[in-house]
């Protein structure tokens, strides 16, 4: 018997890893992967509570979240390819076009 708090701890650790990846890494591809890890942690919380309450609506929400994550990955990677074409590279510290 695994209590639900274990699943929440796991999701929290995964989310934390994703946050650290976004903040600490400079490669924009790794940053996108860290965002996927964070989305995964949120999904895990939804599924855990859905199971705990015996309510399927959380799983429906996770289904929609996965579809949105796919859309986000497609657009994000298109932006990466576009950045590379503009010869900016994949280092997010170099992406200062909108700030300057």
């Amino acid at each position: 018997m695994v209590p639900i708090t274990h699943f929440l701890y796991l999701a929290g650790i995964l989310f934390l890893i994703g946050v650290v990846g976004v903040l600490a890494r400079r490669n924009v591809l790794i940053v996108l992967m860290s965002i996927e890890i964070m989305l995964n942690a949120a999904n895990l919380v939804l599924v855990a509570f859905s199971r705990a309450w015996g309510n399927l609506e959380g799983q429906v929400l996770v289904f929609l979240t996965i579809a949105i994550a796919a859309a986000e990955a497609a657009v994000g990677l298109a932006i990466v390819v576009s950045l590379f074409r503009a010869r900016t590279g994949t280092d997010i510290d170099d992406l200062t076009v909108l700030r300057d």
Partner: protein
Amino acid sequence: MTGTEVVFWLAAVTAVLSALATITRRNPVVAAVCLVASFFAVAVVYVLLSATFLAAIQVLVYAGAIMVLFVFVVMVLDKDDSGEIRHAGPTRISRYGYNGAWMLLVGFLAWVLLGTWSRQYVTPGSSLDAQPDFGSAQSVGRELFYRYVFAFEAVSLLLLAAVIGAVVVARSRRERDDDASGLNARQRARNDAGLSAKGV
């Protein structure tokens, strides 16, 4: 420890370690493969939470679609973390492909074995007893297509918009300029269709 606890701890440790490996690897291809290992482990946790349909979706969409997208972009870019262009020979790429395929195979086998095994020992993480079809494709689909059909259709529209947006954003500047000026557009269309300019 019961079977459920063993499966949970194995999957949880795998998920955390491979997520850590994802954000610490220098090479994006290795990071992507570690990310897939993390997704597989989370899919095992979904099975423990009797969300079998979502576990299958997780493997299909994340490990299938998103991972392939990442690997293709990395291969197209062919740059490492320091921003230098690597002149990766076929031996290097094939070595990554070989290791990645092995890790994928082992991950998939572990997912199937742990999934079937945990189904036998499943003692869910709550005091409530789930219905036998809780989390199955049928029950989730019923919920999705009766009460959440509007959200479902809206997401399909969003996916269409995202695909079009991705194609527009990822086009090269030359293609955009050509289309904007209208010059060479017909020529390019003919070339794309495989027709030579002289023959037509």
